[in-house]
């Protein structure tokens, strides 16, 4: 062996260190590639529901015409509701006071410009969403590398990037405001921490500007209040006054946003999907704890949010009763053994991840709402994994140490395998649903040529009920859905111009508190009459659970008019289904 081949111990250590760093960098790159692959199918998703409506808004054809650059999330209000129902953009059972107006001027502006430049560039829309996602992931890395170290930041970044919380915002172009809020809010948070730690006015001003921009992107940015509040509560040892003043770069733009939102009458009212605390505080509080529990389980345990929403309370309670003590024990142990310099930051990120859920309790629980909470969840999970796997001192193999090792294993499995898998499945599912909807609409468009009206006896998918004239590309062609997600429906032709629908065992349409159209509390009763252009609907009978079972539809024209296209939506697709002859009945099935 030559002398040059003999290396000193310190050289060996350095070589080992650089090898280890190189390996770690490679693994990080691979993990990010994995996260990208998980979300890749979203690039090929078609436009869906709101996307079509927003494209029409940008082109100035969505009623009531041109609404400006900043109003693409201004869907329904008192001025256009009836017109939207008359055209069939909204179904006939829409709440008579429904308002859906989101104050998202910056997100609206960016989308508007995009739709004006390239109204059909769906791939570009998804690529842009993907770039925002990449930006958010990079900022998570920057934030945590600054607070902890590169190792912790890398693991947390992968957990954040691969999380299923990004599925819907990636698949759904209209949901981009979530990413814009995340990116601007994260940038604001990074600078905010510097402002609070270093006290530089420049950082304070920059943080203010970034948070103000984030607020302009939409109400989702309010989630950052969780981190700012947590920072001031447990992340600093400043005096009370300094803490209150320190929060100003976030608090001022947030307060201004809320004031403007209230002054301009933005918000959601009279629908079951959203529970705007400023308009319906009891409604907001009523299901808030359940929504909070579901979001907590989804964020930390990678639970399937769609399944959990449908589960009874007992399942959620048992899940939490098992998981919370285990997680708490592992986190407590991690806090004990982590470097002292990490503790304050770990504490405010942990608390922030919990508080960040509060603003999104105004919406039905869904993984898509967890982007901002996942920043803290990813950080804390990463700290647990780092301290369990790469401890400064060998851990004891019993008690809390052993429990933490097992919990860390479970968390790693959840966040690196199970949750990304759910994300992949949901991405493919969402893309498939969008494609299915578009193919059905293509079928309808072809057959609707030359017709004066489309009547859907039974709808099966939300894309057939909501914004469908926009999807059809013909806002002038009335599109009326008579029932939705009903199972078997009996169609009775009671007159030249009237028919009745009787649904069993499911109702004609759901009136759950979680449905976007009714109640809150616009529950329909037997005898209620709804008048829309060309149709008078009378609710005749309710099921035992209060859902509508039977309704009569009186039209202002003969139903045998050949210019009407009659459709039944089955599980397999649309089919033409004219009503039966007068005095006869006909069952239709899914």
């Amino acid at each position, binding site marked *: 062996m030559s002398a040059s081949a003999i290396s000193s111990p310190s050289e060996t250590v350095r070589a080992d260190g650089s090898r280890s760093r190189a390996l770690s960098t490679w693994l990080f790159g691979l993990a990010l590639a994995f996260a990208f692959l998980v979300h890749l199918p979203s690039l090929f998703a078609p436009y869906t529901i709101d996307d079509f409506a927003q494209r029409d808004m940008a082109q100035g054809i969505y009623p009531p015409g041109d609404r400006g650059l900043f109003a693409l999330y201004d869907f329904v209000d008192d001025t256009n509701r009836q017109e939207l129902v008359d055209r069939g953009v909204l179904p006939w059972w829409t709440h008579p006071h429904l308002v859906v107006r989101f104050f998202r001027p910056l997100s609206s502006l960016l989308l508007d410009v995009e739709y004006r430049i390239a109204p059909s560039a769906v791939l570009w829309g998804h690529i842009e969403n993907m770039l925002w996602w990449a930006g958010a992931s990079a900022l998570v890395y920057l934030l945590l590398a600054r607070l902890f170290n590169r190792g912790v930041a890398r693991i947390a970044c992968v957990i954040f990037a691969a999380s299923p919380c990004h599925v819907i915002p990636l698949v759904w172009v209209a949901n981009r405001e979530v990413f814009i809020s995340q990116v601007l809010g994260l940038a604001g948070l990074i600078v905010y921490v510097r402002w609070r730690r270093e006290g530089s006015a420049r950082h304070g001003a920059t943080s203010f500007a970034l948070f103000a921009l984030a607020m302009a992107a939409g109400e989702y940015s309010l989630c950052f209040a969780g981190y700012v509040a947590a920072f001031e509560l447990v992340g600093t040892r400043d005096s009370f006054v300094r803490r209150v003043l320190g929060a100003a770069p976030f608090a001022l733009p947030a307060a201004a946003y809320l004031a403007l939102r209230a002054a301009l009458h933005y918000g959601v009212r009279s629908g079951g999907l959203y529970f705007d605390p400023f308009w319906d505080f009891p409604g907001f509080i009523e299901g808030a704890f359940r929504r909070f529990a579901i979001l907590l389980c989804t964020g930390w345990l990678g639970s399937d949010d769609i399944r959990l929403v449908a589960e009874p309370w007992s399942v959620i309670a048992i899940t939490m009763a098992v998981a919370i003590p285990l997680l708490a024990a592992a986190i407590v142990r991690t806090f004990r053994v982590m470097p002292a310099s990490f503790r304050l930051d770990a504490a405010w990120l942990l608390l922030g991840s919990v508080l960040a859920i509060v603003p999104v309790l105004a919406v039905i629980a869904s993984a898509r709402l967890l982007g901002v909470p996942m920043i803290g969840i990813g950080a804390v999970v990463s700290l647990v994994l780092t301290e*369990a796997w790469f401890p400064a001192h060998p851990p004891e193999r019993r008690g809390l140490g052993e429990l933490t090792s097992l919990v860390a294993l479970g968390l790693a499995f959840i966040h690196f*395998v199970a949750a990304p898998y759910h994300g992949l499945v949901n991405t493919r599912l969402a893309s498939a649903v969008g494609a299915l909807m578009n193919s059905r609409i293509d079928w309808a468009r072809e057959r609707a040529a030359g017709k004066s009206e489309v009547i859907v006896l039974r709808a099966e998918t939300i894309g057939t009920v909501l914004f469908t004239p926009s999807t059809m590309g013909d806002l002038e062609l009335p599109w009326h859905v008579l029932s939705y997600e009903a199972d078997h429906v009996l169609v009775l032709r009671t007159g030249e111009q009237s028919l009745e629908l009787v649904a069993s065992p499911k109702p004609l349409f759901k009136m759950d508190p979680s449905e976007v159209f009714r109640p809150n509390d616009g529950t329909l009763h037997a005898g209620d009459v709804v008048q829309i252009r060309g149709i008078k609907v009378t609710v005749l009978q309710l099921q035992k659970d209060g859902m509508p079972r039977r309704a009569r539809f009186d039209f202002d024209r003969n139903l045998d008019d050949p210019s009407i296209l009659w459709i039944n939506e089955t599980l397999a697709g649309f089919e033409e289904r004219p009503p039966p002859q007068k005095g006869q009945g006909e069952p239709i099935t899914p």
Partner: protein
Amino acid sequence: MSATIAVPRAEPAVRRPFFELDLLDNRYPALHGLRVLGIVSIVQYHVTMVLRNSRELPVDDGWSATSFDVFFGMDLFFVLSGFLIGSILLHSVASSGTANLRRFYLRRAFRTFPPYYVVLTILAAIGPLTSAQRHHLWFEYAYLTNYGGHPLWPGDLVMPWGWSLALEEQFYLTVPFLLLLLYRFRSDRARLTLLGGLWISALVVRFALYLPHPYWNEMAQYDHLYYKTHARFDTLIAGVALAYVQRRWGAPIARWLERPFPRALLGFVGLTCLWLLMQPYLLGPWGVGIMHVVSWGTLTSIMYFAWTLLLLNGGPGWTQRALSLPVFRKVATLGYGVYLVHLPLYDRVLSPVAASLFRNRGWPMVAVWPASVVALFLVSLGVSYVIHLAVEKPFLRIRDRLASAT
């Protein structure tokens, strides 16, 4: 073979008290707990199968699907058999340069044949047998159950669950020659390449069998891929490889596993395989066949390889301590007997009681199912203990006289 290979000490053949349950070697006590988990998984699978298929009781669909997804207890026994037999033969080859075939086959025969033949003969005698069962009986006596009938077809075999015992016996016939071949290679790399090549070849065989017939239904997939030795030997090879790795690098692996991250890594690999095994629809409804091809041997091998390596060398963590509880050694000693008798016991004795509890006494299925699993497990243990005393022990004493352990 390198002179540096550490030779595990075989437990000396000692005369044990007649009623004791200490048959199993106790060098790796955590494996006993693992065996018991394997037995439980098999028992619960068959309880669900009998309740749903034979008794036509309304076991919840989701529950049944999960119960059937936990099919891989059998593969644990294959891996552990491969490990046990591999360890014995590696020790024999290393110490004497020969596999000592006579002694090996005698010991295996006296260990496994008597209880099997007793149970098979009793079942054949109490009948009544269908013509197919009579026709296939000689296959069963010849340990060819997996080639001489269809284990899933009702009334085709007397002991359809004997397919796995047949598969193991067929493996025992060939494994000494594999070991001799292995030791014709000088380097560890060459030996591992041979073992790895053999292991992966089973997956290739399954793909080769399946791909021309992608529309095989589940029963056909079981018939052609699951029961046949030529498509399922990878779990046993994984066990032999594990024995080789353990023997050759046990000490350095134990040192490596003193650090938390490698332990977590092995646990993570096993957990991921377990999760994949529980996701037959991972590739969609049309990908179930492909998932079977990959799951039935490859994933189970990786999972058990990782976890067993961890249990053998990972030090005294909670899992090791829990699985090493002395009671597990006693229960695991009866495991072979439990496997032999649990299905006829449930099918003929306990499941009618379960059906009666559900239909006549109004017990909900949520109570009938776990009660069945517990009752079957306990009754099987009792019957197995009788077989152990009346059949196994006398033959093991003869075995020890004819072919002592060392």
